[in-house]
């Protein structure tokens, strides 16, 4: 087994609400505003669909960062979804912090369908932060990690 | 100079508890003030001058000593600005400076009459002197 040091390639999961942030990501694409390829987007109807279990699952399976993007408060397609998401994620992040998981591994941001630039900026910034933090060792589940090279 | 005024204005805003930005410049305070005829700076201008850190002019204003503390402006302000608190805060700031006591004990005897209630004296000292 070689102990060659590999370059750290983080894995970032982004949950984007269908109505604002996913469309914002589309706009970033149409405008050719680059952000790192390590960011992979999962489409959900609303930020309130994101169960904290999904975030924990991502970390458990080896994600190095998780970001949730939704409509700006007041603009939710479903009027109140992002308000619930805001409370839930605040509580989840605080709990993760309490367990000693690095605070910066999680983030919530509000990106509208018109904010392609913001989408790209937020993703670049978040990715930069995850690069600084390095690999998520504290929450990764070893059992899952081993299956990576199948 | 400007910096000094800014600091003073900050103190005034703090000790008065007044958020001058809440003022929507409707002028109801000035409309309501029973002492307005004696004032060189109207209550509504007090609010905007503190907001704009124009403290020197306020400190030398006669209005400081004309406010009756009747709270009519506080009661009627539609935005909850409390101009009377602001005027008192400026007055207090003025009085606290050296040699700025307005009412001196040596002036009292000439003001006395046998009907004057104690509270008139006490309140005058509280309002006009350190």
């Amino acid at each position, binding site marked *: 087994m070689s102990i060659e040091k590999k370059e750290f390639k983080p894995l970032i999961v982004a949950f984007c609400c269908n109505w604002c942030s996913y469309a914002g990501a589309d706009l970033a694409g149409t405008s050719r505003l680059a952000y790192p390829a390590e960011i992979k987007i999962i489409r959900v109807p609303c930020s309130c669909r994101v169960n904290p279990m999904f975030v924990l699952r991502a970390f458990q399976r080896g994600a190095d960062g998780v970001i949730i993007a939704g409509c700006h408060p007041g603009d939710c397609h479903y009027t109140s979804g992002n308000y619930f998401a805001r409370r839930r994620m605040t509580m989840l992040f605080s709990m993760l912090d309490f367990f000693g998981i690095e605070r910066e591994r999680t983030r919530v941001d509000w990106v509208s369908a018109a904010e392609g630039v913001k989408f790209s900026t937020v993703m670049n910034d978040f990715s930069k932060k995850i690069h600084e933090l390095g690999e998520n060792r504290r929450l990764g589940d070893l059992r899952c990690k081993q299956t990576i090279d199948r | 100079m400007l910096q000094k005024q800014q600091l003073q204005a900050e103190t005034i805003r*703090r*000790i*008065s*508890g007044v958020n001058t930005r809440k003022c929507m410049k409707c002028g109801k305070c000035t409309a309501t003030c*029973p*002492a307005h*005829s*004696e004032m060189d700076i109207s209550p509504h201008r007090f609010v905007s001058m503190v907001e704009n850190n124009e403290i020197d002019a306020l400190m030398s204003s006669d209005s400081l*000593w*004309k406010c*009756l*503390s*009747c*709270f*009519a402006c*506080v*009661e009627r302000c539609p935005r909850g600005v*409390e101009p*009377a*608190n602001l005027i*008192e*805060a400026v007055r*207090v700031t003025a009085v606290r400076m050296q040699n700025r006591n*307005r*009412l001196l004990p040596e002036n009292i005897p000439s*003001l006395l*009459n046998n*009907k*004057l*209630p*104690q*509270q*008139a*004296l*006490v*309140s*005058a000292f*509280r*309002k*006009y002197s350190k």
Partner: protein
Amino acid sequence: MTFDYYPGCTLKTKAKELDIHARSAAEALGIKLEELTDWQCCGAVYPMAKDEIATRLSSVRALAASRDNGRDLLTLCSACHHVIKRVNNDMQTDEEIRTKVNNYMSPETEYHGETKVVHYLEMLRDTIGFDTIRQRAVKPLTGKKIGAYYGCLLLRPNKVMAFDNPENPTVLEDFIRALGAEPVIYPYRNECCGGYISLENNELSAKKCDQITVSALENKADMLITACPLCMYNLDANTNSEHKTKLPIVYFTELLAQVLDI
């Protein structure tokens, strides 16, 4: 029922009538007023600046003493009522003032605004009831037209004083009715008489007093009543003599005692 009673300095000297009749009337109506021992002057003006701590202490001492006695604190002078009630409110709501005051006094038990401050008129209205007074009226003032002069301190700011409708108060009018007289409603009954400024600028005070008395006379008042020694002094000293003869001004407690025939 027993209240702790805070007379204040003026009621001990220049406003004895306000005090004496209040005590006798209360006694006649079955209310016991226990004068607080060792009360100090409240300072006569409420210190609006939040960093004025020492000027709040005498009020807090009275309030804390009343709390320890387990009684409500009854006041009579408008100025004292205003100052004590507002300082009490500070102690309830302003954490910074509360901490500083308690640090200053280091009392055995910290004071947090537990005491209820009651004005004599509130006691008449809420504890005794104006109906009772009407029934007890031995010499009702039938046919008298009396104007109530509220002044500022009892009513404002309503958010803290919570005494009556600040723009259209009714407690003194109801009181006047209970005495068998007819209340005169005139628009300047809640406007300031300029009492606080009478030492500094009695010209302005005179102007304000004039506005009040003219308005009361125009609405056919025979006399004015007040609860405030400073208003009393000011209206007396700064009203022109012509109006003064037409419109005597007395403390409301004097009339109460008179009607109860004490």
